[in-house]
């Protein structure tokens, strides 16, 4: 299977994730979309690693997965904190990030 197919899939997944980040109105779904984007990137890494016959892509994928797990833990903790604060998971409700 040529590299192009992997990359197209990876791009599609990334686009879906991005669209999810922008369009969904739930913070948890937002986090899921971010995970989707990360995994799209992982897919691209692994595909490149296979193509060039090196293990670099796989190694960095493990790193990304670790970071993603940490990010998910912190992100979910923040989401819980935010929900307790505002009784809402809609990102539009949080507009205090300005001067």
């Amino acid at each position, binding site marked *: 299977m040529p590299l192009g197919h992997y990359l197209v899939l990876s791009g599609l997944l990334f686009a879906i994730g*991005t669209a999810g*980040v*922008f369009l969904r109105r739930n913070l948890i779904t937002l986090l899921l979309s971010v995970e989707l984007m990360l995994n799209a990137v992982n897919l691209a890494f692994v595909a490149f690693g296979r193509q060039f016959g090196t293990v670099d892509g796989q190694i960095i994928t493990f790193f990304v997965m670790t970071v993603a797990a940490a990010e998910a833990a912190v992100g979910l903790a923040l989401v819980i904190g935010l929900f307790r604060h505002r009784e809402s998971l809609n*990102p*539009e409700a*949080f*507009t*205090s*990030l*300005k*001067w």
Partner: protein
Amino acid sequence: MLALIPLLPFGGFLVNAFLGKRLPKPVSGGLATAVMAISFAIAVMQVIALAGMAPENRQITQTLFNWISVGDFSLDLAFRLDALSAVMILVVTGIGTLIHLYSTSYMHEETDPEYARYFSYLNLFCFFMLVLVLGSNVLVMFVGWEGVGLCSYLLIGYYYEKKSASDAAKKAFIVNRVGDFAFILGALLLVVTFNSLDFTTIALAVKQMPPEATFGTLSLITLLLFIGATGKSAQLPLYVWLPDAMEGPTPVSALIHAATMVTAGVYMIGRNALLFEHAPITLGIIAAVGAATALFAGTIGLVQNDIKRVLAYSTVSQLGYMFLAMGVGAFGAGIFHLYTHAFFKACLFLGSGAVIHALHGEQDIRNMGGLKKHIPITYWTFVIASVAIAGVPLLAGFFSKDEILFETFLHGHQVLWAVGALTSFLTATYMFRLVHLTFHGEERFAAHAHGAHGDHGTHGEQPTGEESAAAAAHHATHGHDQPDHGHGHGTGHGHGAPHDAPWPMATALIVLAIGSIVAGYINIPHALGGHTALNAWLEPAFNATNCGAPVTTGELAGLALENCAPGEAAETGDHTALELTLMAVSSLLAFAGIGLATFLWLKNRQIPAKLAAQYPGVYNLLLNKYYVDELYDAAIVQPVKVVSTEGLWRGFDVKLVDGAVNGAGYFVSGISIVLRLLQNGSVKTYAASMFVGVVAVLAYYMWR
């Protein structure tokens, strides 16, 4: 030793300036007077030492330190005593001491801090004046030149709470700046031309050059320096500040605005005599300006009614004489007149101060008269000085004025001589008008003694009856702690009558009056069997060296020249008849002037009023000082104000400067109104903008 002469008054200034508030009056005044007296004593010793030297190397130089050293240009802070500065330091310290002494009594009504402030300024003035006189190069002289201008400003504005005084101070300062600007341009041009500012170096260099027939560098330098002199020495067209300077305390007028500072311009020209001699065009201008000023101020003096203003215009007029002398190349005669003038004009001013003091601030001579029997010491000294300035034979003014007129005639300036002679007639007239209106005739002061616009500002309570008589007796011995007023009693006889000067003032007056009589005898002309000893003494200073050097002009032929160049003596002898004739003419003019004044203002008091009524145009022209102040106001002050207000303030500052500053503000806030919308706090918008940014960066690298 030489440096001590200026530094002593400076020490006095420091003490009075920093500790004066806590010092009682006798200490601050006494200290200021004492430093001047010591300074005078040192000056006398130094001059005696100088006189002991051979004429060709009469010079004492004291270099304090090297001030400026750039490339091959070097300048020392150095003092130099020579024949010319010797005359000046004696005048400055001698008359300065007398005026300090006089002031201790005159300023007695001031509070302790004010009194100390006055004396600190006076000491500071003497310091700067001595720096000016002793400076060995143009820059040191300029330091003194500016310093005396500063002190003049401070002292004119001494009664700074009075608007007219602070205005006059500002006027004096600003008008002087005009001259000083030209002076410093001249000094810079000297550096460019001679690469030196030392007087002797310049004189020796200029000696090698031929006199300039056309308008060249030397003419430009001397003209610029002369413009500086017109500012400091109150010549046309920059004389306007001097009459207003009379707002200062009277002793200040005597010291600064009559005897010393205003003669700085004359001294400066004498200092650079060789330089000016090589610029005949400038000399011609100087002579013309001097003669014109003498006549112009003399006519104004004829109708003024303020005792000090008459004297102020008289000063301007006499300074005109000095410049006339300088302009015709008779430097010795100019310095001679400077020296005699210092005596009688200081005496006149101090006398007028005593009159003002006696009348508690009255300055209008129309409200005086008949003071002769009340204040005899003041009267007699004033009359002696008036006779001296009028040019009556055998007094100081006669010798110096006649020498100027004689030299003017001798050098072929008959028109200028006629102007000078006419001015001498006017001098006699207005001086005796002043004497008659102040001291003779009926008493007019009693009913007006309170209409004071004078120095004292405040007046004590009005004592009555015996109290007043007692107060008068008290004042006769002690001075003037509390002014009493004889008015309201009809006559003023016995009730607070004007009292004569107390001893410090009387001493100064008497010494100066004696000086007015004898000062002229150091320079008796050849025609009267003398040897013009002062000219001979000054001669080496004007020629930069001794009689061994060739003399470029004949007018400096004095005793020294006779000794080494016998041929010159015969030339001097030829003019004896002419000199005697001119003397007779000017003496007659002096007597005629006195006679006319006596006729008009003593015997027939109604005639001047009739004349004034008959020729209102002329009278008003003179009374309003030829409308020169108004002219300056219209030609310079108002345009400057309009340009400043409309152009610089409302135009440049408000529109351009403020516009630029405010515009920058409006621009930023205008952009912000748009940019602020981007920061809406929504996480998704931030994420979107980050995304767009990343895409943009990627796109840039892809399609680069």
